[in-house]
């Protein structure tokens, strides 16, 4: 059971939840935790949330602010679980399972990227979450970072100020034009991909956006990794509930361990981050 340190509304539907975590393990950008917020049986299942920030010194010196070790979750209120979360107060306890899943491939492992290394982070709304830790990993390196951040309106760009503080080069789009460019994050991506130099695209957001991003990256012959968010029960690969259809033989980056080919991978265990080429987008 972890202790709630703060739970702060940052935008009408978005909150930042800080939790202490003794003996905090190392966490990769893109990994997530499963939270249980109530002892009641409604809501019944844990809810998955990406790790937005590391608090305190963190394992591997990842941490940034505050002194107590812990993590910060950035979440959007969408249903009954997140509504309950919004009522959490400092001192309440939360049950955290994690960190879980595989995060984004470090750029060093993305084979085809050789020169003028550039990372494009494409985030849609709450899809911003994995990019804070990712940006933190690279912003002092030689790799150039670009954040493309799209939302419905200016109230759907949670955490934008955190990236500004970092000094990350950021382009913003909104569906309603209330901030940044009027349009979709894919409009921004198109421009970005047309620039010279090898790059890799990391994307997180609604499925329709990821599908479009994957297509654009494939057309541009650019490596692309996407973080999916299927509904989950166990979060650890046991229930086979979070299945995502993958393309036929010989596609995946991660090896297929069993002899029998299964057309499904588990978002919680094999993902949530996948090589975009692995996913059978036509069935999503």
């Amino acid at each position, binding site marked *: 059971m972890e202790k709630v340190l703060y739970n702060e509304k940052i935008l009408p539907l978005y909150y930042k939840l800080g939790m202490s975590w003794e003996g905090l393990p190392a966490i990769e950008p893109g990994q997530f935790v499963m939270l249980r917020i109530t002892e009641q049986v409604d809501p019944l299942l844990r809810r998955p949330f990406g790790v937005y920030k590391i608090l305190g010194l963190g394992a591997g010196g990842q941490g940034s602010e505050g002194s107590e070790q812990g993590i910060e979750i950035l979440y959007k209120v969408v249903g009954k679980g997140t509504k309950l979360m919004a009522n959490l107060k400092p001192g309440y306890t939360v049950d955290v399972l994690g960190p879980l899943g595989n995060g984004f491939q470090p750029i060093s492992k993305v084979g085809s990227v050789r020169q003028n290394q550039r990372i494009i982070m494409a985030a849609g709304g709450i899809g911003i979450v994995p990019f804070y830790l990712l940006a933190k990993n690279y912003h002092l390196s030689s790799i150039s970072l670009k954040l493309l951040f799209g939302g419905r309106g200016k109230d759907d760009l949670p955490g934008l100020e955190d990236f500004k503080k970092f000094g990350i080069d950021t382009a913003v789009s909104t569906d309603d034009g209330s901030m940044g460019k009027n349009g979709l994050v894919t409009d921004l991506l198109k421009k970005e991909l047309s620039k010279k130099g090898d790059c890799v695209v990391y994307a997180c957001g609604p499925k329709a956006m990821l599908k479009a991003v994957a297509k654009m990256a494939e057309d541009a012959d650019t490596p692309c990794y996407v973080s999916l968010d299927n509904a989950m029960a*166990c979060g650890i690969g*046991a*229930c086979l509930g979070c299945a995502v259809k993958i393309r036929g033989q010989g596609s995946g980056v991660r090896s297929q361990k069993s002899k029998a080919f299964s057309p*499904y991978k588990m978002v919680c265990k094999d993902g949530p981050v996948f090589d975009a080429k692995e996913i059978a987008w036509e069935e999503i």
Partner: protein
Amino acid sequence: MGRDIKKKSEVRSQESGEKTPRTGKPDLSVNIAGIQLKNPVMAASGTFGYGEEYAPYLDLNRLGAVVVKGLSLKPRQGNPPPRIVETAAGMLNSIGLQNMGVEIFIEKKLPFLKKFDTKVIVNFFGDSIDEYCAVAKVLDGADGIAGLEMNISCPNKQEGWLEFGTNPDLTFRVVSAVRKSTKLPLIVKLSPNVTDITVLAKAAQDAGADVLSLINTLSGMAVDVNTQRPKLGNIIGGLSGPAIKPVALKMVWQVFKTVKLPLIGIGGIMTAEDAIEFMLVGASVVQVGTVNFIDPQASIKIVDGIEDYFKKNKIKNVKEMVGSLRI
């Protein structure tokens, strides 16, 4: 053996095995059909993977048994997503029995499980009597398996897709056939989606089942009012979790009064109290399913809670509890 056993209720579980119980410590061991369990708590099929997935989160040695995800003869790919959806105090799943097939299981997964001091029960199914028998035969030859659990909530491809578990004649035939295909203790897992579960229980008993486990999931559905589509890719799924506990308890109670076989109670168990409810109505053993997702340590907490309950109520062993509901 000199232990003073009250003949309070009909005795379903065979003689408890622990020879020299520590004074004051209740004996949680139970023997069903020759399977000697250190305690009456098993992880339910499909909710615990192949044990491996949960090994980092709890000490598998503390469990009575692990029942693995249902296996078929050949690998199965399962149903299209979405496969799970939460409902009020429950969840629907339409995994569709995705599995790697019995042979890969024996090669890749069984060796890991054998390392633990817990029993391995293999859940399996088929879409024909032949497939059921073929799987049972393969498992019969494997080492390290304590018993088989037959999931009969599967449609019979050869006879109009009628579910084996909803028709007493089909139940009898498939269980009889499997009975001849294996020497391992045979647990038959009953479906709750029937008018009278005691009829099916009797059919399974008559066909040679050693133990009955119940219940499997209730058939259910959920709709997304925003998209006007079913929330599951398969439209229909199986309901599990605390929502179904009252239905499960009633069925165990009915079956307890009807057949002589030891029973495994399943359905919505979250706590030791829930497990004890099942034991009071006649279950010698319980399986915990959905709760594993919510609290990976739940099964062990349930073992401890049962022990506490036994101590508090001066119950010496499982046998004394089983079916001892006061009415």
